[in-house]
């Protein structure tokens, strides 16, 4: 147990964060956390060592989290996997340079809360792609494989996610007084 519990304490905060970001629900995130490590423990024999242990854990956790999300959304009419294309998702509205090191205006906690809020405002279909690719740093191919999406779907969702987050962070971080500069 001790070697395995070392792995748990080493990785559990990242798995929990990801579970929370995907499910947006504390109870679901806790379930995902437990299921992930219980499954990992039960299937340690299957872990081939040909991928990184953390990547293997993330795969288990993402599948658990998506299952939770589907369950919770099953009564809603909006399908989880297909973003509704309003044609406005790629619009860039805020064009302003940022302050130098804008992060330093906030405490680590404040900044964490702001970033969480920004991620949560994304549609689930964009959010999950962003989390896997840009936070967990998986490749486009791994992300596509895990989410059962085409490479081009991952790429277009990622672009929208990145642009929407850029938009939100620009509202927080833009250099004061730059509004007069707006190029639009």
């Amino acid at each position: 147990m001790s070697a395995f519990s070392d792995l748990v304490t080493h990785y559990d905060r990242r798995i929990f964060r990801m579970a929370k970001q995907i499910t947006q629900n504390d109870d679901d995130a806790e379930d995902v956390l437990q299921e992930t490590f219980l499954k990992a423990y039960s299937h340690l024999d299957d872990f081939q060592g040909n991928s990184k242990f953390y990547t293997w854990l993330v795969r288990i956790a993402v599948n658990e989290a998506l299952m939770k999300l589907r369950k919770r959304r099953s009564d809603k009419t909006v399908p989880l996997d297909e973003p509704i294309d309003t044609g406005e998702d790629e619009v860039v509205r805020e064009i302003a340079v940022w302050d130098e090191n804008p992060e330093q205006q906030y405490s680590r906690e404040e900044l964490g809360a702001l970033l969480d809020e920004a991620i949560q405002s994304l549609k689930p279909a964009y959010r999950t792609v962003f989390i896997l690719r840009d936070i967990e740093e998986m490749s486009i191919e791994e992300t596509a494989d895990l989410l059962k999406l085409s490479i081009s779907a991952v790429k277009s969702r990622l672009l929208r996610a990145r642009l929407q987050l850029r938009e939100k962070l620009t509202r927080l971080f833009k250099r004061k007084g730059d509004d007069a500069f707006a190029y639009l």
Partner: protein
Amino acid sequence: MLTCKQFLSELNDYLDDTLDPQTRSELTRHVNECPNCWVVCNTTEKTLKVFKGMEAKAVPPDIEHRLMAALEKRIADRGPICGQKKAEA
């Protein structure tokens, strides 16, 4: 010269540096000449940097405690992985 829309559609591959040299230099030319796209490119890059720098907070103690308890229970039920196979042999 590329349009801003074309630039935007290639922005990810530009930031991830996965483009062939020729496309890349066309995009660089655009971004150097177009203030709007320069700002969008620069702030998107910074956005990614801010998110990548975000550290995960510790799991709340009660949740961590229940996780460890669930694992210990599973291990007690099944026995340690290595010990289990020996016992069967």
